[in-house]
């Protein structure tokens, strides 16, 4: 009887700990809601295969290269990403042209899945997600040959 009570106590303590952790923070799918403006496109890591000098190069990506990398992607020319609670995302460019896709989060909320663009599914790694900043990584083998880091700042809370 005493052992049962001890086990029950530990169980309640552990579950209480987990639930209080989750209750004191927003879920990533809630944090994402709202409008995000693109701040920068950078190389997170450069491919060092071409030599050591590569590392001394600037990590920022030019506008032309950015267009080339994102040519086949849903996020092509998108400057503002608006996440809606119904699972829709609006990607708006500088010229005001917008495309609507669907979004969902995978894993523990660290993988952003975008789908609905020409039957393709794209996955982006959410590296950092706070109330005001979002950092997304994705791999590309097109010229850039490295991990691309996109940084966003929140401009409008949903």
């Amino acid at each position: 009887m005493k052992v049962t009570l001890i086990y029950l106590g530990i169980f309640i303590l552990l579950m209480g700990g987990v639930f209080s952790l989750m209750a004191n923070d927003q879920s990533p799918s809630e944090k994402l809601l709202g409008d995000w403006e693109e701040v920068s496109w950078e190389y997170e890591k450069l491919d060092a295969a071409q030599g050591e000098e590569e590392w001394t190069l600037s990590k920022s990506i030019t506008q032309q290269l950015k267009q080339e990398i994102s040519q086949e992607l849903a996020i092509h020319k998108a400057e503002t990403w608006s996440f809606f609670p119904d699972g829709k995302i609006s990607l708006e460019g500088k010229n005001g042209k917008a495309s609507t896709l669907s979004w969902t989060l995978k894993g523990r909320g660290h993988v952003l899945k975008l789908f609905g663009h020409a039957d393709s599914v794209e996955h982006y790694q959410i590296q950092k997600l706070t109330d005001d900043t979002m950092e997304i990584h994705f791999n590309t083998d097109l010229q850039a040959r490295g991990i691309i880091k996109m940084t966003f700042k929140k401009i409008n809370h949903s």
Partner: protein
Amino acid sequence: MLSKYSNSRTLGDNIKLGALTAFSAGMVNVISVIIFFAFTSNVTGHYAVLAEEIAKGNWYQAGVVASWILLFFFGGFTANLIIINFNKTYTYLAHAVPIILEIICLLIVGSYIQFYYQETLVETEILVGLMLFAMGIQNGLTASISNSAVKTTHLTGLTTDLGMLFSMFTKKEYRENKALRGKAKIQMAIMTSYLSGGVAAGLVYLNIGYNVFYIVCLFLLVVIGYDFYKLKVSMYMSARQPFLRIQYLSGMHRNRKRKRKDLQNA
């Protein structure tokens, strides 16, 4: 495969148990990565992720990962609790019930994905948790009944053990040690099966999608079905033995009588 406990188990029993369950664990792990982007049969990585999320101050994600680890823990706890409480009275059931529980968990996940899955984060978190619980049950069961010789989802320890074993086999005295050779055979069988299960799941998923879960359940049914068959056969044979013995003895008695009569007539 299941009904023999700890020290009464043979090397063959452990290899069969390890290979079949590791194959299903490999399948479950790869499928969960493909569908949910989360591992479900190895917990070491989750500890690292938990530490990372705590360090970043992502308390929600830390809570999610902590609950996944706890569910794996409860899986092992449940499996062993059933075994230690019912092993003496209902040996077969004590070992079959955890596998049945695992099948139920995987069936729930498979059916839910097939009919209701909306790809929301909460669904993903719950389904991954259920799969981790199932894998905890399987690991707890195999480790418990094989005296920790078989751990089908613990590939870190297994690879370490294999490294150590192969270094020992450089010396003749260890190469000739039957126990060590047996251990290496089990570990190799588990490693190969786990990998094959993963590759098979990846390939099969391309053709049949979420139905992979039903195939895993089929494998687990083979595990309990095989054991049930073996148990029934052995029970049938032991029940038949006294009858056969009586028949044999009475036959011998009849032959002796006949021989005696023949001798008297002669």
